[in-house]
């Protein structure tokens, strides 16, 4: 008798399993990554002359397509530019501005600028709540005419303050791109 009771209990359990499975016909919800930085937009504004923009856009985020780099024109030699960085997530529409997040969390973020060739200096032009640079705004000074590269790296949770080098900043990389430039 007891055996039968137990068996029926088991059979009921088995029925329950099979009956509660297929109820999600709508299919899973699409996820568009919130935090991915698809686009970096750098504006370099000189005192006089043409404003130059640099852009790195990677619409598939961590997907297989490589970022597309565009530089609007050549920089002028021996000129000081005011630089401003804008970060966007364009997988969302309208595009989400990630610049604000970085600004708000300035203590936990820092851009590191590494240049080669005809760029004389890159200096920070902003500070976080702790008085240390963030790099959303910077001053770039070109040297004599020639080729140059500007590598911009955004570090999350860097050592602050630091000496402005990649190894000094530490932390983990949220963004890294190198722009090829011509100074004329």
């Amino acid at each position, binding site marked *: 008798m007891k055996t039968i009771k137990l068996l029926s209990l*088991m059979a009921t359990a088995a029925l329950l399993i099979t009956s509660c499975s297929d109820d999600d016909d709508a299919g*899973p919800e699409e996820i568009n990554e919130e935090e991915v930085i698809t686009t970096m937009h750098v504006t370099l504004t000189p005192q006089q002359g043409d404003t130059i923009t640099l852009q790195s856009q990677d619409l598939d985020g961590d997907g*297989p397509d490589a970022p597309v780099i565009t530089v609007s024109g050549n920089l002028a030699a021996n000129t000081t530019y005011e630089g401003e960085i804008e970060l966007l997530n364009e997988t969302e529409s309208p595009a989400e501005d990630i610049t604000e997040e970085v600004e708000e969390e300035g203590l936990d973020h820092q851009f590191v600028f590494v240049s080669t060739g005809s760029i004389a200096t890159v200096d920070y032009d902003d500070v976080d709540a702790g008085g240390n640079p963030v790099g959303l705004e910077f001053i770039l000074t070109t040297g004599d005419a020639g080729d140059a590269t500007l590598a911009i790296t955004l570090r999350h949770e860097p050592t602050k303050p630091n000496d402005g080098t990649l190894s000094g900043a530490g932390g983990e990389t949220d963004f890294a791109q190198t722009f090829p430039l011509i100074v004329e």
Partner: protein
Amino acid sequence: MYLKTLFTIILSGFAPLMMTAQDCSYSLSGTVMDYHSKDALVGATVSVIGSKKAVLSNLDGSYRLNGLCAGYIELEVFHPECPTLIIPLNIEENQVYDIKLEHHLEELDEVKVVGNSIADQTNSALEETLHLNELEIYSAGTIGDALKEISGVSSLNTGANIVKPTIHGLNGSRVLILNDGVRMQDMEWGDEHAPNIDVNAARSVSVVKGAAALQYGGDAIGGTIVVDPGRIPQIDSLYGKTMLTGSYNGRGGNLTSELTKSYNNGWFVSGQGSFKRLGDHETPDYVLSNTGVKEAAASVQLGKHLFTSGWDVRYSFFNTELAVLRASHIGNVDDLIRAINSGEPQTIEPFTYDLENPRQKVTHHLAKLKYYNRFEGIGKWTAQYDFQRNRRFEYDIRRGEANNQASIDLLLTTHTFSTDFKWDAKEQFHLQFGILGRYQENFPNPETEVRRLIPDYQKWDVGSFLLGEYRVNDALFLDVGVRYDFTNVAAQKFFQKSRWAERGYDTEFQDLIIRDTGSQYLVNPVFDFHNVTATVGGKYTVSNNGNLRFNYTLAQRAPNPSELFSDGLHHSAARIELGDLRMKSETSHKIAASLEKKYAGWGWTVEPYANFINDFIFLEPTGAEYTNRGAFPVWEYNQTDARLLGLDVMAFSNWSDQWSTEHQFSIVKGKDREADAPLIYMPPANFRNKLVFSKPSWKSFEASLESQYVFQQNEVPGNITVFSPEQQEEVEVAINTAPETYHLMAFTSKLEFPFHKGTKLTTSLSVHNLFNTSFRDYLNRQRYFADDLGRNITLQLKFNY
């Protein structure tokens, strides 16, 4: 006054020489016999737990143990055809005690330790069992740490908290973990997913090295781990244990307690719980920041076990929250190169108990209902239903509010129904037949706002097996088995359109697309897998002191969800991991043999094996992808033909009543036969030697000194070369360079203080990495970022009541 006594007792744990001598001249003798027929049992091993004293029963079943000390002892009685019995006794004089064993194979399940029942059921496979006293040492550790005591078993670690057991060089989905008869469904596919089992809930853990134990599943190409919570005797009794373990490294410990009430009418109820808390671990030179752990586990069991029929229900809960080394969370390949070259972690903070991101939080619920009935003169029928619910959160370092939101949030629900019938009416010939049905559902929560690592899927498994065991004569056992498994997986997964094209799925799988969202496709892959497992083997008693075993097993394993569907960035490895929808089942042919010889004071075992795996699924670097975050090496799951050759050698010697030594050597060579290259993550050769001193008359004093010598893995795949945007040139990333050889020493000691009837306090002190040696282990995935653990001193107090 009482406190003072306790204090003295604890103190004396470290000063055995303070012990006063006691009378140790008593003897215990009697006959080992069959419980039912009262026939004498020959060759039963009667040993005193915690000492080296052991004798075999003679032709007339008689045994005699001399030189016993007055006080409480536990006898372990082992006979190959009977359940192992533990008998508590109080020695007060020369005593006669007859031991009755259940000399029936069929009774194994309800009256014995599963570990030995496996040994009985797969006579021919390579097997080893860890007993309670060995497991208790790891009370504040993990089950993976404990299993490494077994030769041929190593582990793939992610730091100290995530320890995945590796058997004969294989882990993850190739290792089946059976927890009290329930196959664990705890997302074992991930390298950084540890088994969700509390080591304190196990009474014994057996390892079958290979897929020969096919009654539990057909795809255990690496092996099967059988975790047994212990049998409950059919007597009126109330007993329990409480154990407190303190660890110096991690500055925390573990508290575990259990209580069982049993009745002689077969009823029993039992409960167990543990709590573990550790802060940051430390290497000899620095703190491993963010490596703490908080773990809570509990189980309750209720049932009635009789010879003719019985049932039990069990519920167990396991919850762990563990922090993952801060320095191992990196952004891109340049960060990885920087970490490897720097030689020390990028983040070292002062010690803390806080668990920060990156961290994992996993909860596992397991419920089981089992029933058995014996049909006289035919055999025994068993039916079981089990339910498992596994929820996993993984938190990454994220910006803003998202930092409090898990990046991975998976819910895996599994229902299994299995039933088998064992026909054992004939003494010489046994048959077991079983069927299994399983339904599994995975739900990745979209609230993570991170693209799903593992997609939504539903999986059905149906399996059936037939096992036969034939006893040709007293010296030769043969066993043979066959199993068939059918698996159906239906997934719903979003692919980025760019990935879909890059994988070449647009030519092969375009018909699977069910929705186009603009940038992504929703795809509905449905796959069937048909797998066959077969085993044949024998055990031959060479002479009265030797055993020869031989086993061949064919096993097939269907690809796991990770191998099929992985698609995305892995932060701790700075790599993009890609599964493949075209993945087929892998097929293993494993041949294993074992020769065991025991002489008067010593013995040895040699276990060679060869495992040929066709369509072996593995991850390999195939190139690099560039994103706005920098460069990432791409690792794809591919299939190749692999070969694993290995050898385990064990020896022991009892030099005198007090002194003995144990020796173990393991080596395995893995080769990718298509590429003619070494396989990744093969355990390096290791050599272990242990010197044991035991003096039962000094409160069961036992001390041991162990040396573990781990060689450098000299067969590794080549390193990869990636274009580094930071350095603007091709750079070699030393991901496969193996750490150097290391040598660790460990010390353990133990004392026992019996009180009243059956009540006893055991104190033990152990020191791991005695000389605080700095080292890195090839099988620790955090070896790129930091050294391994420094010295750890563990003090344990155990109270049996």
